[in-house]
């Protein structure tokens, strides 16, 4: 099994598993992958680069291969702002960090629409919690949209 990962996420090693890490700003997807995981990296892209990226992922997957996306929940962050309870994680979800600024945030509807336009078949689209490490070494929980989509020729 061959997995491509964008963003900082690890997959436990096991026999027969090949894991390749890529930078979402500078990548070449060579060959075919069974799974492509994009963890918290899509918001780093300018809007005009999102569809080309998703198309690259689609073309690099084997038939029935899976794209797994984790993207900070724009709805959750907006509610924090609206109720005046925003904290550091809220601002990170909206703006990213200095080294990796976010160019866009996504509601589930916007994200799913983009993915289906490529045209992936969305198999699940749910809320999830992603644990991320801060520069200070603290682990915080971040609400994310988690989408699993497949290439179905």
């Amino acid at each position, binding site marked *: 099994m061959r997995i491509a990962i964008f963003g900082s996420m690890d997959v436990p090693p096991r026999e027969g598993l090949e894991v390749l890490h890529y930078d979402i700003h500078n990548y070449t997807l060579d060959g075919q992958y069974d799974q492509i995981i994009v963890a918290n990296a899509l918001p780093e892209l300018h809007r005009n680069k999102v569809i080309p990226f998703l198309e690259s992922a689609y073309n690099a997957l084997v038939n029935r291969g899976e794209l797994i996306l984790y993207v900070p929940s724009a709805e959750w962050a907006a509610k924090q702002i609206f109720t005046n309870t925003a904290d550091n994680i809220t601002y990170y979800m909206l703006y990213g960090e200095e080294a990796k600024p976010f160019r866009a945030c996504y509601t589930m509807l916007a*994200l799913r629409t983009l993915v289906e336009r490529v045209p992936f078949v969305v198999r*699940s689209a*749910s*809320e999830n919690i992603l644990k991320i490490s801060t520069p200070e070494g603290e682990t915080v929980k971040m609400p994310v949209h988690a989408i699993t989509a497949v290439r179905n020729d």
Partner: protein
Amino acid sequence: MTSTSSKPIVDIGIACNINQSYLWWKDVMTMLLQEVRYGDAEIGMLRTVGSALPDHNKNNIVGNSVKRLSLTDYNRTEITKGFLDGQADYIFWMDDDTAPPNNVISRLLKSGRDFIGGVYFLPSPPHHPIAYRRDPETGLYAPVFGYSDAALIQIDSIGFGCTLVHRSVYEKIRDNHTVFVRTNGSLAAIHNSRIQKPIVTRHAKKEKPYIRAGIYHEQYTQQEAGDTRQFPYYQLEYGRTEDHYFSELAESVGIKPWLDTSIVCTHYKMKGAGHDEYKQEEMKAEGLI
């Protein structure tokens, strides 16, 4: 038996007949026409109870024999028999007061899920979606609440006002269950893995159900060949609606329902209720208004 058509055949099942608004007709006919002209499905039979047909067809059902005043579980079971005896690959269930959006069947088909529905809402406050998660401790169901628009999530039970089911779900349930007659004469489907032999068709001495050491005991006899009642896919019992019963049967053969919240229906009663009414309640609960 499945179709040889390039598009899957989908029967339409309408088993509820309680409140019907004239507004329902326009939405549903538009949806069906859109599906026929532009959709990815071939519409098969319309299997409906009386009030979902024009007046001259009252008390009839296409491809079946359901009377309009029968209970919903009986209607669903009879409609299911007609569906399984026919050619269709899927059945799309709706009620005669739920109006699904255009292309609903094609969109549900595209998910590749065998048991999946869209969202329709309780017509009166709190307008929660008729889709549920079960508390593993109590076994009680609570409505799905506070979800993202456009989510596609696995749940524990779903109403049948906008739900697509593949025939394999029914076949798998039927093949993995045995039907018994309870002491009150009603039917119960028991998963084969939970049946200890011997299976009996008659008890020498009739005993009333009892509880011993916290375990309920009741005499069950296997349904006899001459009993013409259909497989009990749906049961209104214990104060629960028949959708819970079916969802639990499906879960027992490894199939849980999915909910696509990008598909939103209007639930007509005297006044239509939908996504806007639900959002008002959600925002109130979250202190946003």
